């Protein structure tokens, strides 16, 4: 059967290569980027080398001052200064201006550099500045992973809470978790009776009802979120109808609120809860209920002691699927939510596109990935491998 295995390997190889090259390795690189620290070492190699040998007491030797002045000037020439400034400013706000000012003044600075640098910017006279530069020497840092949990590192390496005005990520993860949990709960509660009713309907009606669930399942998330955006506007149909019925006195601002986010997420994810439950329930044999009845169980007992435990795998699968999709959701909150309703995905997107802070984007991705991995693992354990098969 060696021949067959060769053929099998040949058939699997192209896809495996694509997934490896385009997914597994990139995801691995992303996780690595969350701890990678190379901007300073690349742009200021000599400074990094001198600082690495420095004992960290008081101020570094004159050679370090001379090296930093020369290398910052060179980094400006080589257009590398932006990366360094960004990296250092993330470690300590205000470092950007210090570094840029020094880089621009590098040509005019004269020995002794220890004096002329401090004269240019008082920060060069503080030991903390040098300790920060030293700790940014790479090759790895826990800065991003710590910051993504609202911790920061002191120049001497201790871990402390981030400054109050920079703390937001624990709240962000809690919010993401909370919204996802709420959406999952609503979806499961709404989906169960629907799945039950459809599973128990007679021939043409069950297919018709199932089709009505499949229509939103097959249509695009963006189309459905856009629909809610239109419906919920101040001048939109929902406000119009409520005003017309006299239920509202003035149009309500729903777009940009948590309610809109939850509404859109429930709408987008509800089919993912209904379908697994329905598929489990249609496979449940009605003879179980008949058997329970013949053994004397009344309607409520039949439901609670036979139907519910048997349909639980579908509930778990559906719930896990909804939660999994919710925690990583970008589109719906981005479109109908306000700044305070955004979830982890939105912050990752911003760090990638707007702030170009790839370290933070990678760190948040790593945590999000860990979260979803935990959900999948938990659901697989609970349902015996049903989750993740389709979605």
């Amino acid at each position, binding site marked *: 059967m060696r*021949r067959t*295995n060769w053929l099998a390997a040949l058939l699997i190889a192209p896809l495996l290569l694509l997934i490896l090259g385009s997914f597994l390795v990139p995801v691995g690189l*992303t996780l690595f980027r969350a701890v990678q620290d190379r901007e300073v070492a690349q742009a200021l190699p000599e400074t990094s080398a001198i600082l690495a040998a420095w004992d960290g007491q008081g101020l570094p030797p004159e050679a370090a001052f001379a090296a930093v002045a020369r290398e910052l000037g060179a980094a400006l020439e080589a257009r590398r200064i932006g990366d360094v400034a960004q990296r250092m400013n993330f470690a300590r706000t205000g470092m950007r201006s210090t570094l840029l000012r020094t880089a621009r003044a590098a040509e005019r600075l004269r020995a002794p550099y220890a004096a002329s640098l401090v004269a240019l910017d008082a920060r060069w006279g503080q030991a903390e500045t040098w300790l920060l530069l030293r700790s940014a020497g790479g090759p790895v840092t826990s800065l991003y992973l710590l910051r993504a949990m609202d911790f920061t590192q002191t120049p001497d390496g201790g871990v402390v809470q981030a400054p109050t005005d920079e703390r937001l990520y624990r709240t962000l993860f809690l919010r993401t978790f909370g919204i996802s949990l709420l959406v999952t709960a609503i979806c499961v509660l709404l989906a169960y009776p629907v799945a039950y009713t459809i599973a128990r309907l007679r021939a043409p009606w069950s297919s018709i009802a199932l089709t009505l669930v499949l229509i939103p399942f097959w249509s695009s998330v963006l189309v459905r979120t856009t629909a809610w955006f239109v419906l919920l506007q101040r001048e939109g*149909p929902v406000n119009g109808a409520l005003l017309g019925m006299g239920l509202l006195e003035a149009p309500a601002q729903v777009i940009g609120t948590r309610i809109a986010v939850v509404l859109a997420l429930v709408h987008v994810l509800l089919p993912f809860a209904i379908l697994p439950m329905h598929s489990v329930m249609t496979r449940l044999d009605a003879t179980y209920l008949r058997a329970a009845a013949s053994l004397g169980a009344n*309607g409520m007992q039949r439901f609670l002691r036979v139907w519910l435990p048997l349909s639980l795998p579908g509930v778990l699968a559906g719930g896990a699927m909804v939660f999994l999709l919710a925690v990583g959701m970008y589109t719906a909150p981005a479109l109908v939510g306000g700044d305070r309703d955004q979830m*982890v995905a939105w912050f990752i997107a911003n760090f990638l596109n707007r702030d170009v802070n790839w370290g933070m984007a990678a760190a948040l*991705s790593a945590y999000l*990935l860990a979260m979803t991995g935990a959900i999948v693992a938990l659901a697989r354990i609970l349902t015996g491998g049903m989750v993740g098969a389709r979605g």
Partner: protein
Amino acid sequence: MREHPLARILLRGATALVLLFLLAPMVAVVVLSFSPTELMVLPPGGFSLRWYEDFLTAGRWVLATRNSFVVAIATTLLATLLGTMAAIGLQLGRFRGKAVLVTLLTLPMVTPYIVTAAAMFFAYAIIGLTGSLLGLVLAHTVVAVPFVVVAVLATLQTFDANLLRAAASLGAPPMLALLRVMVPNIWPGIAAGAVFAFATSLDEFVITLFMAGPGQFTLPRQMYASVRESLTPTILAAATLLFLCSLLFLLASEVLRLRAARKLRA
């Protein structure tokens, strides 16, 4: 076993309400897309095709549609080919760690799109594939291909492995046996996977947002940009057309499902 009549009425009422909740927004979008004015109110107070006309004549919408379909078609071809081959290989092979391999190949399905997007953004930036349609097709293929693998693997469960042995005993080399005996018997699964891949690519938004170049708008990306800019019923015309596509996908997948079921019974 019947429920209590009152319970039945409550259950059916709740189901009807939930189905209404699921469908009403789509119906509203379709109705509003025929609105004669810019106002989006119900009832629209008239019927007009002006927003469809706008959609079909506005350069950026036409370009976005073209991009979307080019990428979706290329993605479908690539994902279907690679996914089907891999699924067949997984079914044929007798080696350890097959379950791990299936998990690896279908991992993009359970990974948040934003993480996949970030990862590909970093990686494609290194090799300079960001901002190219080729990069976009590869990225879409990665997230679409698990559906093909899963669909084909599912169909293969019902394929009788003795048919391949029979073909070999009759003189057919392995590749010929796969093409002439296996593929004709599992095509509903392959086609279902292809439909899923096409729909996934056409709907995909998050990865496109990062991978596509500045000028490379797809329909979802153009919709998102337009909603943020200024909301006009043209967006609703686009949404209605995309919705129509998804109805076609649903129809196709149901037809294929019935065909597969019939094949199984035969």
